[in-house]
């Protein structure tokens, strides 16, 4: 049985990568980095993990290097955040389309303009189309567990895709909290050695990543679509096996006190823990409200989501990023995609909160819930709103 210990979540994630016995870590060791790779470099330097730690000159190089490691058949891990993820952008597509298994943890942080290092989801939400599997953690334990499950999923013969574990910057990454760290032996039972289907090998040369002429490019993209879509079943299966081994249950879409709730708040990541405490408070006051959170974001768990919100009349969506001049927050848009044309679809109150490190607290949940209640009462659905703007909200009214 794993010991319950207090540790910073970033440190815990590094320990998790270590108990997964990763072979290669490539990372750029400066802001916006976290303690994840800093601590991994210590673990490797201390001789506690037999791995190559490759400090590179940029995140672009870090992701390129990770592609090389995975192509050579190494269990590969890296971490980044914010601008670092943005700088990896073009290589992310390549990692996915070469079907290179690896796990990258992203301490979700805002993108600059103005310069910001704080928590929101603008880094990951601008990388939705890269073809990676993407999952979200709500606390340190989940981040640790998802790193362990992530390697197993990523390397599964039915998946063979890079996987991104998202955990909120600062409100998770810099938080000291209790963690049960599985031992190397326990993880070894759950996570078999990586057996690449194809690898770069000088004795048996192959080409990876050649030109995709117009005659094959569309088919390659079709293959990418099915690769991510088909990851769903084995991912659910692996979550089940993880539960058997470690006793902690994970689902593609998580719910909290959704029974009889006419109004549901929808979100992902660390703010949902604060939201659960808020739900407990208002439920005690006799108000029927619940939470639905995305654990799995790519592949998008459409059926699980529909099941989770069945019966609700209004959904209050809390996005942590938006597209200026566009259709609002990404999660709300994807929810609309899932529900469009459906009979008795719930109304959707779209909000954007917690940008660039602004705390999301009970007052914000109250405010969003009030908007939902107005819509439930028959008021027209407002356009998406940036909550928490000093002096008023979106709409200039």
């Amino acid at each position, binding site marked *: 049985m794993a010991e319950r210990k*207090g540790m910073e979540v970033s440190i815990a994630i590094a320990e998790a990568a270590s108990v997964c016995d990763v072979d290669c870590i490539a990372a750029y060791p400066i802001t916006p980095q976290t303690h994840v790779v800093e601590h991994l470099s210590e673990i490797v330097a201390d001789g506690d993990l037999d791995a190559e730690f490759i400090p590179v000159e940029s995140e672009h190089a870090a992701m390129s290097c990770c592609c090389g490691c995975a192509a050579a058949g190494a269990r590969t891990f890296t971490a980044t955040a914010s601008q670092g993820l943005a700088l990896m952008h073009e290589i992310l597509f390549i990692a996915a389309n070469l079907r290179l298994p690896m796990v990258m943890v992203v301490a979700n942080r805002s993108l600059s303009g103005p310069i910001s290092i*704080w928590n929101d989801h603008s880094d990951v939400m601008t990388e939705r189309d890269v073809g990676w599997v993407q999952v979200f953690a709500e606390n340190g334990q989940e981040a640790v567990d998802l790193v362990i499950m992530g390697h197993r999923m990523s390397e599964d013969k039915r998946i063979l895709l890079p996987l991104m574990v998202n955990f*909120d910057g600062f409100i998770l990454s810099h*938080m*000291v909290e209790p963690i049960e760290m599985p031992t190397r032996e326990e993880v070894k039972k759950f996570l078999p050695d990586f057996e690449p289907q194809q690898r770069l090998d000088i004795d048996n040369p192959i080409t990876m990543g050649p030109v995709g002429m117009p005659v094959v490019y569309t088919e390659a993209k079709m293959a990418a679509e099915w690769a991510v879509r088909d990851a769903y079943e084995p991912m659910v299966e692996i979550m089940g096996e993880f539960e058997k081994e470690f006793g902690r249950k994970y689902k593609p879409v998580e719910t909290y006190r959704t029974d009889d709730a006419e109004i549901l708040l929808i979100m992902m990541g660390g703010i949902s823990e604060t939201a659960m405490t808020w739900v407990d408070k208002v439920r005690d006051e006799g108000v029927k409200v619940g939470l639905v959170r995305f654990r799995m974001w790519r592949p998008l768990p459409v059926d699980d989501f529909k099941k989770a919100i069945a019966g609700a009349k209004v959904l209050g969506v809390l996005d942590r990023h938006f597209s200026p001049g566009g259709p609002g927050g990404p999660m709300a848009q994807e929810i609309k995609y899932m529900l469009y044309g459906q009979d008795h679809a719930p109304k959707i109150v779209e909000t954007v909160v917690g940008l660039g*490190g602004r*705390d999301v607290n009970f007052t914000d949940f109250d405010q969003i819930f009030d908007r939902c209640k107005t819509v439930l009462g028959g008021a027209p659905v407002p356009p998406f709103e940036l909550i928490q703007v000093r002096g008023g909200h979106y709409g200039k009214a």
Partner: protein
Amino acid sequence: MLELRFHGRGGQGAVTSAELIALAAIAQGKFAQAFPSFGPERRGAPVMAFARIDDKKIRNRTAVSNPDAVVVLDPHILHIANSSDGLSKDGIQVVNTMRSADEIREEYNLKGRLITVDANHIAEQEIGRVITNTTMLGALIRATGVIERELLVDELKVRFGRLAEGNINAFNRAFEECCVEKG
């Protein structure tokens, strides 16, 4: 749930204080969290750190805005930081000062019950440097009784290794020497 807020300057170890008390609480079988006020830390600039301790799982990731106890690591920070902000009814403030509780309460309009300790003096004598975080923990533990004293000493041993002795002495002296106002 006990909510704590630490006021200090970058380099004084406010974040370490919050972490040590959370680690000791977890070692005692409780639930706890500790985190800094997130920002680009600069040596000497005012900083805050937060901690929460409870017997059940803590599901709150917001900054502590209504602390039950505040720790002021730097006597001069009271000029620029409002340590009384949001202090809960029955809240306490543990202040590093060589002055009396009445004097500083009047000058800075401090709320709550005050626990004072001359941590600069103790830290200088025991550690040889005016870094007051471990010293202030002695007074905090005395005032709140939230953690077993020995468990915090254990955390000091782990964190400071060969430098632990001075920090433990400073911690213990503050525990004994702090002035606790009657409730």
